């Protein structure tokens, strides 16, 4: 049997992924600078890691990034729902399988034999990342427009509650990103795949991808 190249990620997924990387980077780094102006907790983010230079600059970046994040996110979600991408790739998420995969990963056995399919832990993590982005946008809208979007804040404790919701969902998303990047470093060919969309599968018996 010969090697063959298979498609893993559609163009829509790759474009929205990399636009999202850029948007999230802008939002997180400028967001840290905004946080520093009135910290919720007794710590600040190192100024050198933040974007914008000072509060006004960070706010300018944040309110440009929000359009990028939101429009790109809506495109991705529309694509994911309409194309069946979510249904095929991200669901179902079984808690028992997730726990099994996480335990295996912690023992150093990352079960990702075929890049065309996500294991349960990946599916759970990617669904969580999408949900976190939605929570970030919704709580962000409450912070930006606590009067006009007051109704959105009812379930997250109005303006002050939204500050915590925004902070903790950011923290959770950054945790996801950290794990995600570590995983990519452990399985580096996934990086190329998210750029080209393709992976070369070796013929059976010739030591296929592990």
């Amino acid at each position, binding site marked *: 049997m010969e090697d063959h190249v298979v498609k893993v990620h559609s163009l829509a997924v790759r474009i929205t992924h990399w636009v999202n990387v850029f948007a999230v980077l802008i939002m997180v780094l400028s967001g840290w600078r905004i946080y520093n*102006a009135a910290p919720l907790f007794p710590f600040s983010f190192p*100024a050198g890691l933040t974007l914008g*230079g000072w*509060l006004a600059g960070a*706010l*300018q970046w944040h309110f440009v990034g929000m359009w990028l994040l939101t429009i790109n996110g809506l495109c991705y979600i529309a694509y994911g729902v309409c194309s069946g991408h979510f249904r095929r790739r991200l669901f179902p998420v079984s808690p028992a399988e997730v726990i099994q995969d996480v335990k295996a990963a912690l023992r150093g056995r990352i079960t990702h034999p075929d890049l065309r399919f996500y294991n349960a832990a990946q599916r759970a993590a990617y669904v969580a990342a999408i949900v976190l982005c939605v929570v970030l946008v919704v709580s962000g809208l409450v912070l930006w*427009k606590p*009067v*006009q979007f007051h109704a959105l804040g009812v379930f997250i404790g109005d*303006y002050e509650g939204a500050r915590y919701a925004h902070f903790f969902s950011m923290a959770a998303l950054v945790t996801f990103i950290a794990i995600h990047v570590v995983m990519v470093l452990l399985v580096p060919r996934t990086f190329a795949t998210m750029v080209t969309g393709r992976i070369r599968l070796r013929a059976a018996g010739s030591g296929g991808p592990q």
Partner: protein
Amino acid sequence: MKRFGAEQGLEVFSRPQIENIERRLFMKRGLSLGTLALLSGCDVTDFETVQKTLLAMSRWNDGVQAWLFDPRRLAPEFPEAAITEPFPFNAFYGESKVPRLDGASYRLQVGGLARGRSSWSLYELHALPQVSQVTRHICVEGWSAIGKWRGVRFSYFLGRVGADTTARYVGFKCADGYYTSIDMASALHPQTLLALRFSDRILPYRYGFPIRLRVPTKLGFKNPKHITHIDITNTYPGGYWEDRGYNWYSGS
């Protein structure tokens, strides 16, 4: 209003340590002018392009916010038990520098596109119909505090001074050198007040004696204190923080 001063100063000194990171990351051009000064050799054109883009987007966001603004939607009001004690003091200077105007000789000057009386004594302002509100004051820095304000509905006052309410802006000049401006739609909002009292007492010096604007549909720095001049105009008046890069509309 904003606490400020320390932060801007610090920026300049905290830069060198991140120079190396900046060279690798895309965000190097989005930093302050102080950064630019330190990063000699960095391409100024690109920096200016990014700055211009950011400011253009900020102006575009002004338009979006004006479109989102519902003149009938009220800011939430709170019971008096929810009032924040003590209410924070905030300005671009320390509390010791707060201007202490003389109430007896004070006159509020109204200029621009207004046909009515242009000079108002404090006594005359207190004689106008007064309303109260307990609303949340939200600072651009992120913190918020609930306070009780009482004063003249600004839409009523604009009527009394014969203001042209088709004008685009209302500008404010203050005794401490502060200045800002708001859109006419927000000026006419029923909760926008010329506040004369805070927590049922005559407005203390630290909160803007003798009068301040209270706009619960805008961020704190759009609520000028110690107002001496009001200008009805179609010419964009800008503002102290707005001219330094903060978003002009800054609606809630």
